[in-house]
């Protein structure tokens, strides 16, 4: 699997340098080494690589200034900042409910199905000039309310009956009629059921009464006092009411398609552009009755920054939530597996002999495990929660680091200060954690960054096969659903391209940062 591949590549890229290290160690005269080791405790490794690592980490300023000079490093940092911004936006900018209710179709019911992003008109070949999906609400002051489209609420008293009117003013400029329209409401009522009336004022000031009915308690989603309701454009009452208005049209109109009839010119078959006003009137017969909110939804084919998927979910939300999840998976898997690998390798290298031999045998066995089939089996029969997946990926991710840190530990353990502390009688654990591991830490930073993409790719692949955590929106999960819906062969590009791009860019950011850290700390092995 890709995780392994990245690890292997990472390992392989290092192989030549490690060989060189060994050669230096064997061939170079020891006098030089001893001088180094005794003169400066910090300069431990006898090759250039080690020197540079430690010198540069000690001197943070040099490190940062050299990092800034690298273009690719800056590019990586910029992408990372964007991802961090997305993470912050996910936590503070959008309601947490959108994350928890990601798989609940009811939560997304107001959105259109498979709508393309609103900006798709800029690229003419990607989408037709289709209307935007419009959700106007009487309570939230969202973006749609602030433009030309707005909602006004007025209350009048007609013969002792309270009439609450929600007026939706819409500026309709598309060449195509909307797909449909829908009015939803929720109200608090007492015994006498209120009545609801909908009238439409068209741009030429014609007034169409399109709906009138009393509100009976709906079966779904209602308790004793709060009633929720939805009136669809396909409602038979609308159909009947519109029969009266057929005479206004010079040509044949169909009342079964009210969205076409209501938005058409009366003289010729075309769309009447201009300001429409939907007046939704609630007749309240009891003083205690209260309208909680109402919404007008004008069905379009364009929605939001990133469009929607087949379950009407706003892809912007899914993509933004994918960022913290990917960062969590990538960073936790790479950090933990590299720390484990490092400790494992150092113990093997330091202890040597039998311990080394057996630990490295185990490492070899792990190395030749086929990652994907095992991941499949494990997530099928152990569990699919995101934390378990992180554990599985750590399970397959520590071997490369173990090999590298073992070979470095083999060198470090021969340095005089390590032998000195051994003679003093310090315990092995203390020597390993106090004297050897700190020398390897600089190398770990680069390795962690470089192994992040592997982890992210592995999780994405697992989700793509359908074995990811189903309760969380991840980029792999979104692509899995896109694949199940055959998005590629249906041309649903907005569902396909962004998640994959984000996966690739996240991986790229960490590879660029890792490579830059590596090449700054280790100038001999310049990669870019």
């Amino acid at each position: 699997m890709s995780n392994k591949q990245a690890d292997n590549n990472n390992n392989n890229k290092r192989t030549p340098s490690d060989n060189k290290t060994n050669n230096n160690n064997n061939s170079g005269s020891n006098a030089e080494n001893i001088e180094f080791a005794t003169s400066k405790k910090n300069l431990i490794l006898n090759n250039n690589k080690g020197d540079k690592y430690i010198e540069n980490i000690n001197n943070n300023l040099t490190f940062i200034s050299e990092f800034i000079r690298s273009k690719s490093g800056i590019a990586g940092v910029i992408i990372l900042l964007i991802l961090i911004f997305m993470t912050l936006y996910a936590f503070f900018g959008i309601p947490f409910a959108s994350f928890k209710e990601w798989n609940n179709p009811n939560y997304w019911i107001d959105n259109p199905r498979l709508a393309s992003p609103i900006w798709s008109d800029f690229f003419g070949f990607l989408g037709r000039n289709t209307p935007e999906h419009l959700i106007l609400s009487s309570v939230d002051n969202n973006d749609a309310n602030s433009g030309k489209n707005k909602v006004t609420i007025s209350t009048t008293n007609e013969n002792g009956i309270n009439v609450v009117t929600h007026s939706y003013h819409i500026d309709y400029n598309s060449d195509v009629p909307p797909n449909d329209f829908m009015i939803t409401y929720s109200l608090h009522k007492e015994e006498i059921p209120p009545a609801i009336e909908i009238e439409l004022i068209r741009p030429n000031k014609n007034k169409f009464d399109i709906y009138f009915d009393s509100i009976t308690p709906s079966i779904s989603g209602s308790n004793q006092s709060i009633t929720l309701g939805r009136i669809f454009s396909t409602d038979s009452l609308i159909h009947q009411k519109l029969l009266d208005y057929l005479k206004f049209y010079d040509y044949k109109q169909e009342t079964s398609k009210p969205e076409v009839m209501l938005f058409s010119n009366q003289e010729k078959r075309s769309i009447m552009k201009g300001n429409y006003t939907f007046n939704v009137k609630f007749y309240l017969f009891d003083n205690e009755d209260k309208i909680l909110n109402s919404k007008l939804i004008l069905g379009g084919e364009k929605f939001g920054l990133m469009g929607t998927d087949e379950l009407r979910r706003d892809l912007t939300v899914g993509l933004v939530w994918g960022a913290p999840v990917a960062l969590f998976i990538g960073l936790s898997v790479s950090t933990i597996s590299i720390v484990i690998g490092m400790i494992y390798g150092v113990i093997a290298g330091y202890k040597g002999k039998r311990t080394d031999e057996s630990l490295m045998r185990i490492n070899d066995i792990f190395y030749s495990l086929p990652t994907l089939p095992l991941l499949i089996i494990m997530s099928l029969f152990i569990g699919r929660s995101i934390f378990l997946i992180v554990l599985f990926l750590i399970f397959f991710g520590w071997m490369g680091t173990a090999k590298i840190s073992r070979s470095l530990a083999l060198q470090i353990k021969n340095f005089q200060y390590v032998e000195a502390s051994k003679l003093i009688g310090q315990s092995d654990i203390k020597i390993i954690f106090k004297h050897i591991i700190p020398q390897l830490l600089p190398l770990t930073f680069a390795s962690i960054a470089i192994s992040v993409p592997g982890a992210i790719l592995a999780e994405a692949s697992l989700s793509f096969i359908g074995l990811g955590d189903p309760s969380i929106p991840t980029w792999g999960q979104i692509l899995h659903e896109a694949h199940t819906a055959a998005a590629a062969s249906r041309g649903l590009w907005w569902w396909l391209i962004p998640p994959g791009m984000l996966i690739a860019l996240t991986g790229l950011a960490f590879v660029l940062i890792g490579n830059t850290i590596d090449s700054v700390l280790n100038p001999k092995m310049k990669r870019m």
Partner: protein
Amino acid sequence: MTSGFLFFLFKRIINMFIVLFSILVLTISLLGPTMDNVIKDSVKYSVIDSLSNQKVEFKDITERQRYIDQQIKLQIKNLGLEEPWYSPNRFFNTLLKVMVLDLGKSNFFVSDSGSSSVKDIIIEKIPKTLLLFTTSTAVIALMGVYLGVFLASRAESKLDKTNSIFAIFSNSIPVWWFGMIMIFIFAFSLNIFPARSTPLTPPDDPFYFFDLLYHMILPFITMVVLGFGSVAYIVRHIVSGILQEDFIKAKFAMGIPKKKILYSHALKNAAPPIVTMIALGLAGSFGGAFTVEVVFDWPGMGKLYFDAIGLMDVPIIIGLTYVSTLIFLVTVFSIDLIYAYFDPRVKLNE
């Protein structure tokens, strides 16, 4: 063949068997309970089924139920299922059965020849996976090595830098996503290649193979495009390291043509790390090949795996895990052999 090499070989083989064995044990212990339930369910169905065919008369429903229970118990005992799956007897039995792919019948899948035995279904898929996988890997390796050596000879040139960027990019892109994009471009927008890679001609048709090849083009291109960049990148780094060695400079001084130095002397010395690298990449991309099959509906093992997971067909899942582990291990083992051939140090000691 020195004793060092034999020892090396011996160690590798032992390693291979340990891995194979431990994976089987893991698989069986994870899937054991599920597998038992599947077999018991099928026993139950077959008992009820045969009862309704026999038309045996019963006094009342409880007697009928008692008869059914008795029959099921009998059958389960016959099959040796009365012991739990983890009893040593049954465990090794299952282990042996998996090793010879004697996994009974699949509940949902049928092979092209109409057999529903797990063995037939899986064996039928292996060549298709290998066809796609080996051809693309061979092309990736050839292109990568050639391009890598070429780039090493002109290190730091614009082409070299472009390839570095390309390689890093192609390493972070998921293959299966790239496959979806390829379908979008070539199947949906341009309409050149089919979106599904399962050929429509029946398998016994003489043109089946050519149809298969035509359907293979898109997944093949996907894998090659994403694969060769990073191979070239790594080969370039290994070779350019070798080009700085003194003996290469000496060869240049002797007036040996550049091409010969590059492709014969330098490449020969760079061979061991390159072989490991390509081979490990190959083993790593094995999993990637599975997902590519899923994206393109290529009728191989990966697709079968995906479908079996969707339908929870346990015998197929166990069989595929075993077979893919086996293929993977054989690949890794043959890599070791090739490596030992190229690197004389392995033959001498270790």
